């Protein structure tokens, strides 16, 4: 249609269109007649033409007119061929792009009611598959039967989940194929979430080929009709069911034993529904499978599973004994943990105690043959580790193995203890360690002192032995007695060897003290020696005095011998006036020099051969 408005040329003959010049006046009445005639003849048409022109030239009116016929025009054109679709496609695609580019919201809002359910469905299918497997696996992991199946899984090399499924499943529809009957081409396919299907296009072809092969075989072998439909292929733990329609066939892969009613209640209605919905598309199918996306919900409807009543994951409730066992296990673990912790703490305390004990060196700790183990060194004088174990810990002694090697520590406390143990000091003796030296003080029997001198330097840890401050008890006593003896002076009558009377007590004391001295001497490993010294006063001649003093000493010796003092322990000498006891300034003092005095000494024990 041209853009310029249409014009209409008055429908006049050409000659009458020309002015007639001189004939004009004459023609005028004719023209009027003509006009009248014309108006009579074609006025209604003229009005119609005018109306038409108005409709054509007025875009508003034209649009209104076209809007009335457009839907019908599109319908007709679409029915005839594809050219309208092809013409519109680029415009619609561009418009769609532009709309999304400009503001995607309207498009998103428009398709969201479709997308939501589709996505939900896809996700829930995927999750269902996963949950089914998980539920079954979890449920059967803990039971006795579960253990048996686990054994089976490891024996057969299948996954545990697979074995569980095998035993608990009555049936499960794993895959559904919608296949073009004629060509075997796959129109649509879905698989349950837990199944990983092989290339469905190829499988679809092969399924069709195998049906064909079986039909040939049935025909050749049993004379069956060529078009006899195959209903089912049994593959052991799986079956493939075929549900044919006029153009397409439903092939359903089922694991387990599905009831025959499925065919009547589910598969037949499904294939019929698909044929009803897609009849024309199926009839004219030429390889384009895209239109069959819409039948997915039909196929998804077929995917389901049924488990043994007591195995249905939906009805599954963890049995009480499982909870009980779990609680029991938990309790046992808790108690065991607590006991182990307490045992370990006690053990650590014991080891700390050992380490802090003098004379014990811990070298190794740990566990051996399920028991605590400790090894180290200990001084025999230290506290016994076994005693520590018994008295200071609550450990079971049977749970502890120990190995202690003995050693001697140089710790002064232990050295002292060792010295005491060895020397056994009598009461009155005090031992101490000073600068590594063993120091003895106090009073001790002579024999102990002698022995300790020999033993002490040999005690481990003793650097030397100091005993100067130690008092020898026997020696002390003997010295006292000796001094008492030497105090005695036995006087004689002048010029004689006669004792001055009244000295009996003195004499008696002398004898008993001398006897005691002699008796005590061996206790300090000595022999007593008593020297009797005779004296005279200064009157008289030297020779006489010397002889007299000798005689007095001898007289004294005899006297003492007669009183049971061994003679051979005594010697008698006279010193005359050479060793006066007093200065002789008076008579009483002079009388003192007419006497016998005593000197004692101790000599080493005579050898065997010296005895006379």
């Amino acid at each position, binding site marked *: 249609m041209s853009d310029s408005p249409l014009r209409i040329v008055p429908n006049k003959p050409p000659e009458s269109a020309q002015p007639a010049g001189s004939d004009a006046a004459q023609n005028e009445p004719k023209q009027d007649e003509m006009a009248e005639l014309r108006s009579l003849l074609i006025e209604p048409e003229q009005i119609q033409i005018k109306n038409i022109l108005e409709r054509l030239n007025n875009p508003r009116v034209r649009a209104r007119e076209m809007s009335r016929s457009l839907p019908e025009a599109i319908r007709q054109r679409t029915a005839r061929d594809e050219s309208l679709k092809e013409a519109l496609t680029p415009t619609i695609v561009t418009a769609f792009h532009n709309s999304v580019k400009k503001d995607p919201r309207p498009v998103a809002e428009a398709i969201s009611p479709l997308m939501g359910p589709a996505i939900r469905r896809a996700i829930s299918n995927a999750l269902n598959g996963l949950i089914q497997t998980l539920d079954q696996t979890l449920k059967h992991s803990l039971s006795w039967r579960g253990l048996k199946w686990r054994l089976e899984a490891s024996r057969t090399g299948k996954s545990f989940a697979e074995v569980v499924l095998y035993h608990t499943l009555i049936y499960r529809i794993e895959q559904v194929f919608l296949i073009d009957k004629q060509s075997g*081409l796959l129109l649509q396919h879905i698989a349950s979430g837990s199944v990983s299907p*092989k290339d469905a296009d190829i499988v679809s072809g*092969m399924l069709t080929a195998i049906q064909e092969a079986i039909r040939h075989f049935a025909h050749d072998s049993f004379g069956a009709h060529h078009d006899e439909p195959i209903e089912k292929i049994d593959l052991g733990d799986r079956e493939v069911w075929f549900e044919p329609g006029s153009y397409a066939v439903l092939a359903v892969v089922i694991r387990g034993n599905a009831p025959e009613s499925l065919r009547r209640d589910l598969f037949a209605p499904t294939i019929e529904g698909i044929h009803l919905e897609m009849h024309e598309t199926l009839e004219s199918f030429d390889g384009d499978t895209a239109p069959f996306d819409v039948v997915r919900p039909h196929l998804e409807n077929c995917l389901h599973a049924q488990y043994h009543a007591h195995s249905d994951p939906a009805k599954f409730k963890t049995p009480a004994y499982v909870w009980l066992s779990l609680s029991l296990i938990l309790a046992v673990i808790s108690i065991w943990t607590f006991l182990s912790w307490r045992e370990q703490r006690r053990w650590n305390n014991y080891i700390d105690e050992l380490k802090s004990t003098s004379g014990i060196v811990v070298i190794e700790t740990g566990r051996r043959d399920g028991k605590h183990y400790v090894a180290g060194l200990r001084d025999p004088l230290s506290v016994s580790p076994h005693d520590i174990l018994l008295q200071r810990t609550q450990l079971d002694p049977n749970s502890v193995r120990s190995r202690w090697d003995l050693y001697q520590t140089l710790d002064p406390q232990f050295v002292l203890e060792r010295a005491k143990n060895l020397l056994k000091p009598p009461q009155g003796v005090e031992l101490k360690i000073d600068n590594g030296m063993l120091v003895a003080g106090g009073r001790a029997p002579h024999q102990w002192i002698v022995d300790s001198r020999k033993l002490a330097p040999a005690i481990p840890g003793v650097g030397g032995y100091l005993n100067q401050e130690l008092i020898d008890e026997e020696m002390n006593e003997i010295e006292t007695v000796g001094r008492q003896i030497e105090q005695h002076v036995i006087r004689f009558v002048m010029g004689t060897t006669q004792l001055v009377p009244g000295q009996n007590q003195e004499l008696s004391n002398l004898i008993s003290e001398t006897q005691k001295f002699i008796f005590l001497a061996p206790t300090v490993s000595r022999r007593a020696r008593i020297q009797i010294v005779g004296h005279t006063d200064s009157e008289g001649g030297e020779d006489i005095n010397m002889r007299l003093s000798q005689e007095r000493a001898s007289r004294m010796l005899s006297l003492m011998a007669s009183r049971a003092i061994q003679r051979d322990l005594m010697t008698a000498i006279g010193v005359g006036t050479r060793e006066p006891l007093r200065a002789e300034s008076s008579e009483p003092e002079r009388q003192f020099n007419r006497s016998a005095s005593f000197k004692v000494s101790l000599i080493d024990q005579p050898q065997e051969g010296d005895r006379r």
Partner: protein
Amino acid sequence: MIQKKICLLGAFAVGKTSLVARFVKSIYSDQYLTTVGVKVDKKTVTADKQEINLIVWDLAGEDEFQKVQMSYLRGASGYLLVADGTRRSTLETARMLQKRVTQSIGMLPFIFIINKNDLVTEWETDDDTIIEFENQGWSVVKASAKTGDGVEAAFRSIAEKMIGSNYSASSPHSGEEAE
């Protein structure tokens, strides 16, 4: 995506299976050919700017004991006819097979592949014979299973023919060539 069923047929041992083995996606072993008599593979090609899934039905070879089951060709949009250039008899088998297909299924686009092009010195097939076939309207492709030459081209040609063709199994024509 567009799917098309094509069949692969020829005399026994012309190397059909080896010819396409490395060009198709396969999930089944060659044993299917002897047990079921057919093995289905897949090959995706681009023809006329669109991707086409060719579902390839490799049919067991024809010999005096076993005839190719024509029912396997039902619904096919085309086929590859294979002969062995070193065995003249296989060309005759191909000619006979083509006739049988046309009789039982109808006119379908096909490509005639003469295999073993790598052994051209041992060929019993001369150029005149090939020209003769071409004169009858056959599309002849020389190919080699050993080198792979010509195979991809054959798949592409059959796809293009099928896309451009008005023939289909559901509307069989007869007495006319596809070209």
